[in-house]
């Protein structure tokens, strides 16, 4: 089960990075993408979705019962959630690093919308600073 779970977790993590890249490109969230080129971002996203899935299904037999080493529904849900969380952390970290020189234009926009103009690291710092000021008042 352990090796199967690791394979599934890695596949989900990679594919989730890919779908977040595609969605960020569609939504115009420049602070969340790894490349400035929209086409390159979408292409990278598509490769990150398809390649791990092909590897997952072609490397070993995957239609196996949970008591023969597969995953039951609960384990599948847990490893999917962990994989998605990992993908999110990796995406936010890498995009904040590669877009470090992005001009900081955090305006009235908040939440994900702020990522249209700035990196996640800057946006979350500004958001939390605003929150703490509101609490103090």
């Amino acid at each position, binding site marked *: 089960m352990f090796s199967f779970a690791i394979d599934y977790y890695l596949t989900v993590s990679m594919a989730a990075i890919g779908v977040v890249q595609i969605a960020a490109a569609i939504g115009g969230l420049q602070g969340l993408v790894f490349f400035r080129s929209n086409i390159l971002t979408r292409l990278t996203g598509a490769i990150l979705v398809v390649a791990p899935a092909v590897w997952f299904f072609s490397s070993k037999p995957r239609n196996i019962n949970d008591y023969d080493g597969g995953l039951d529904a609960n384990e599948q849900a847990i490893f999917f959630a962990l994989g998605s969380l990992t993908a999110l952390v990796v995406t936010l970290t890498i995009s904040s690093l590669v877009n470090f020189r992005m001009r900081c234009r955090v305006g009235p926009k908040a939440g994900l919308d702020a*990522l249209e103009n700035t990196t996640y690291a800057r946006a979350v710092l500004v958001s939390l600073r605003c929150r703490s000021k509101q609490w103090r008042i």
Partner: protein
Amino acid sequence: MANIDTVLFTWINRGAGHISVLDSVMKWLASDYLVPGSLCLILLSMWFAGINQAERQRYQVGVLIALGSMVIVSGTVMFVNSFYFRDRPFVNMDVLLLFYKPTDSSFPANSAAVSFALAAAIWAVNRRIGWAMFGAAALYGFARVFSGVHYPLDIIVGGGIGMGVAGVLHWSKKLFEPLLMAVIRVARVFCLA
């Protein structure tokens, strides 16, 4: 009804074992990982995909309803299974099996219930993506019958439960909108919604 179901199952399952490429495609489609994983990845992408704040928020409400539907649907199927158990087709019939032998109840199909619930919840906020998800859910259901692990009625009833639960949650979302908006507001503080 059970007779029609058996006849329909036999007719669909008869297609297995003739064309190896078709069998391989069906094994992939019937897998526990491909379609459910893809549908969940679509949910993840929907969270980020809107082109403005209003659209993004509508999609995020749809994603939260889809997750809620998934939990309720799984609970409903478990509840039905606690007092009704239907054997898998391969237990009582001569079946060409392309899949491992599941030991849980065949009726209603949890796989169909969950995938149709996700599709219906997203269809309510984006028709195009919703239809694509319905297509994937229908193919998944068909592949499960083709592979010999479900009767058609299991898929139809499972899909009906899934769509019903997602529909009820969507039409009554005003009741628990404060909770959904609270989740989105907390995520917005961390720039995640």
